[in-house]
């Protein structure tokens, strides 16, 4: 093969690489996670994941069907568990104690649609990248498109409860996630706008 032919091929491959790389953002909306190493996008990603890894989120995404409580993530007291509809047992269920808002007298937390995340959305024990991939997988995320996922992450009242978690049974304020709400919302939007890329493990 002549030197110039090799040069053309090399240039061709380079061009293909650029085209392929540029095509990644077009996966937006199709929930494809891509393994790339991009420190700028990583910042928004990690900010979002710092929130999603916090006990305020993971406590209700258990892997063993048992909700967790507190920053020490202990199993929910009194033997409460998922039950058939993610709402506890037949007669003693989430709403026996949890209402649509926090109760400052008893310290019982509450928000609209208080329930465990479905079994397919188990996050407990996963790494941040595993959680992110699971969250993007329509088989696991309640068949949410990226737009619907963004809405869930930034607007769903049950999710937003994390930033107004009320006081516990001792009257001590619960710790909110480590990133302020508006900063978190901006990070989620930025991450999704940039193609919802999950960095390499």
């Amino acid at each position, binding site marked *: 093969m002549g030197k110039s032919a090799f040069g053309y091929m090399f240039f061709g491959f380079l061009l293909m690489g650029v085209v392929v790389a540029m095509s990644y953002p077009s996966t937006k909306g199709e929930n494809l996670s891509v393994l790339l190493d991009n420190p700028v996008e990583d910042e928004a990603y990690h900010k979002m994941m710092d929130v999603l890894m916090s006990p305020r989120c993971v406590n209700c995404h258990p892997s063993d069907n048992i909700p967790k409580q507190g920053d020490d993530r202990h199993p929910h*007291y*009194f*033997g*409460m*568990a998922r*039950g058939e509809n993610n709402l506890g*047992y*037949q*007669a*003693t269920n989430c*709403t*026996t*104690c949890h*209402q*649509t*808002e926090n*109760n*400052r*007298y*008893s*310290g*019982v937390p509450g928000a609209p649609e208080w329930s465990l995340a479905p079994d397919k959305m188990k996050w407990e024990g996963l790494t941040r990248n595993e959680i992110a991939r699971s969250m993007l997988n329509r088989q696991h995320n309640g068949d949410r498109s990226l737009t619907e996922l963004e809405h869930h992450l930034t607007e769903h009242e049950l999710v937003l409860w994390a930033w107004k978690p009320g006081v516990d*049974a001792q009257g001590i304020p619960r710790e909110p996630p480590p990133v302020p709400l508006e900063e978190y919302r901006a990070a989620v939007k930025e991450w999704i706008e940039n193609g919802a890329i999950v960095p390499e493990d």
Partner: protein
Amino acid sequence: MKISFTINGTAQSIEIADENTPLLWVVRDILDLKGTKFGCGKAACGACTLHVGGEAVRSCSYAIKFVEGKEVTTIEGLGNEQNPHPVQQAWIEEVVPQCGYCQPGFMMATAALLNKVPNPTDEEIDQNIINVCRCATYYRMRKAIHKAAELQAVMNASTETQTS
């Protein structure tokens, strides 16, 4: 603010300054229905269990504003000496209580369970009846729960025969 609801079949309206006042406070201190008990105030013991719209609720952790337009049933409305609810009848027959303090909450929780699961297994009892009894009457309660299921089945069968 004014809150209107039904309690044990009677319409009730109360005027209350703090809409977040626990329903238990209203039931005991304003409506003078002392059957429902205060144990922990933290939704942890179940002594305050009553029904809102037929569902078991821990009334120490239930803001009064949420009962607007709803039906509340306390142990006084479940049944009475002349006409006991199957759960109350079973409790009498099995002589369940010792001090009795926790018992109304247990009976309300059991009545709610039998509405959902007419013939509960021991496992279903363990999952749903998680109140606390400091006199440890659990063994007698389990027997009473099974008996209540039988009594309720008999009662339902005779109601069906009468209506058919």
